[in-house]
Every structure is written in C-alpha cells, then in structure tokens.
C-alpha cells in the first residue's frame, strides 16, 4: 500500500472514479454545447446570454467547472508524480513537485472563482 497525501481521493479507486465521473460530465457537456453552437450558426448575444443564464445551464456550468477542476487535478497530479520524481530530478524532486502541485492547485482555484463569478455573478 502506497500512501500519498496530495492525491485527491487519497485512494486509487476514488481518484479513478473521480476521473471517470468528471470525464462523463465534461464529455456530455462538450458534445451538448458543440451541438448547440452548430444548431445556432448565427448566434446573437441575447439568445446566448439567455441560454447560458438559465438555471439549468447555470447548474450545468457549475458542474462542468468542478468537473474540470477535479479532472485536471487528478490528471496533473498523476503527471507530476510520474515525471517530477527522484528518478528524474534527484533529491530536489519532492520540493519541485510540491511547488508544481501548489501552482496547479492555485490556478485551478482561480479558475473556479472566476467561473463561479461568471455563472452566478449576473444573477
């Protein structure tokens, strides 16, 4: 059993599930949104803003935002623990990895706040 404090689910299965569930959310959203855009080739602001401002879309967007953040965290956490290791960087690896993970985390936090403001700020 390998333990790791920085993994999201603190457990392989939960990380894995988070990755899958968030992927499904994003997949459905992206396909749906692309469909909408294809169906509205001459989209104007009014229609667009009304569509995105509706409660279902607000909920969908919020869900998307958190899915993106969770998916990205698990994915990039995996990437950092693959490449930023003692094997590749020697003794400084743990420090470098923690800094990288902190930066990623911080950016994701900013994205979430920005996104939340966008979705709910107008309401």
């Amino acid at each position, binding site marked *: *059993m*390998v*333990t*790791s404090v920085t*993994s999201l*689910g603190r*457990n*392989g*299965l*939960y*990380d*894995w*599930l988070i990755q899958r569930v968030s992927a499904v959310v994003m997949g459905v959203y992206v396909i749906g949104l692309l469909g909408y855009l294809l169906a509205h080739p001459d989209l104007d602001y009014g229609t667009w803003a009304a569509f995105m401002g509706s409660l279902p879309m607000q909920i969908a967007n919020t869900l998307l935002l958190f899915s993106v953040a969770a998916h990205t965290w698990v994915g990039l956490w*995996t990437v950092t*623990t*693959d*490449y930023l*290791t003692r*094997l*590749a960087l020697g003794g400084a690896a743990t420090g470098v990895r923690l800094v990288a993970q902190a930066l990623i985390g911080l950016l994701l936090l900013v994205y979430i706040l920005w996104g939340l403001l966008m979705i709910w700020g107008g309401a």
Partner: protein
Amino acid sequence: MKVSIYRYNPDTDREPTMKEYEVDTQGKDLMVLDILALVKEQDESLSYRRSCREGVCGSDGMNINGKNGLACITPLSEVAPGVKEGKKPLVLRPLPGLPVIRDLVVDMGVFYEQYEKVQPYLQNQSPAPAIERLQSPEERAKLDGLYECILCACCSTSCPSFWWNPEKFLGPAALLQSYRFLADSRDDATEERLSRLDDPFSLFRCRGIMNCVSVCPKGLNPTRAIGHIRSMLLERGV
C-alpha cells in the same frame, strides 16, 4: 551480418558503449540467442543470462531492436525486416529502466520485490483435506493466461509507469500474479489482497497503454488482469 551490443563492465568502463560485431549466419534464420553465442565465441567477455533456450525460463529478456523479447525464441526474421538478410544491424540492449550490472545483464531486484509485494502464494485458512482441494474445470480455466508467466520482466520494463515509479507502481508482471491468486478458487485472502492494492500507485498507475501486452513472449495480457482487479476493487468499494 552486423550486431550492435550494449557493453558495460563496471570493472573497466565508466559509461556503457555500443559495440559492433560481424557474425556469419550463413543465411540461416537463427534465434537471437544463437547470435549471442556466436558473438561470445569471438569475445568471451560478453555477458548475458540464458538457461532453457526454449522460452520457458525467462532468463534472456532483452531489448531487441527497440522491442523487449526473449532472445531464445526471437528469430532474426521477426526482429525487423532486413535484419536476417544483414541489411540492417541487430541491436541488443539490456531491458530498459533497470540498473545494468554488466552488458545485457540487469539488476532485477526491484522487479522481484514487486512480485513479493503481491504475496504470490496461495493463502487458505481452512484446514487442508486429505486429498486435493477440489476445483472445477471452469474455476481452473480462470487461471489460464495468468499462471504461465515466466517472470522475464519484458512487460514491466516496457512500461513507462514502471520506469517512472518502480518503487510505487507494482508493474504488469506482479499485478498479473496478484490476479492469478485473486482468481484462484482455492485462495481465500481476496479482501486482504485487494485492500493492499487500493492506493493511487500500486495498481492505478496503470494507464492502459498496453506496452506489456505487446511484448509478452507468452502472449499474456496484464492489462486485462489489471482491469479485472479494478472491477473487483470497484465492486468492493461502491
């Protein structure tokens, strides 16, 4: 034909080098291991492992023109087009990702440790009967494709997740063996076995890239075994 071999002797070399040899195969489609024997007749100092020379002991796993395989059951014609005809060199390197002891011989310590970590032996708390423990042909069939592993390490040393995290990720070979015991109707340590795999590295570092499957000389499928364990973990966890 030309043979290019990774040479490193800690007694004399600071760095490994690729050394070229010229070998006469008389146009025959020899096995890579036969070529090594011919080279060794020219140069006694070449070291490599070999034992059964028929693909069942797993000694002579190496990287042959970029792909891991067993030297004894890889004929020149299967290495790459042009190798047998001498148009292209045969390139032999040690298994990737493991420390090189000498020439084509790698230190397999990490690999064996991973194997030991999955407790690769049958566990059964109930008292043994006077005869064998009964097992139906269907139950036994579940072990096919698992028990045949020869521990040659071709799979694990072709796996990037193994390269990056050999201490944490168990690697395809050990995970295949883990499932070999999870799938055995005579074994009753399922819960304990699963709980030891339920972290982000041991099993879940498998990204399904299937390098293991594409190099296994016995045609086994660690990716599928890992998938089965994941399903068992999912069933247990949800």
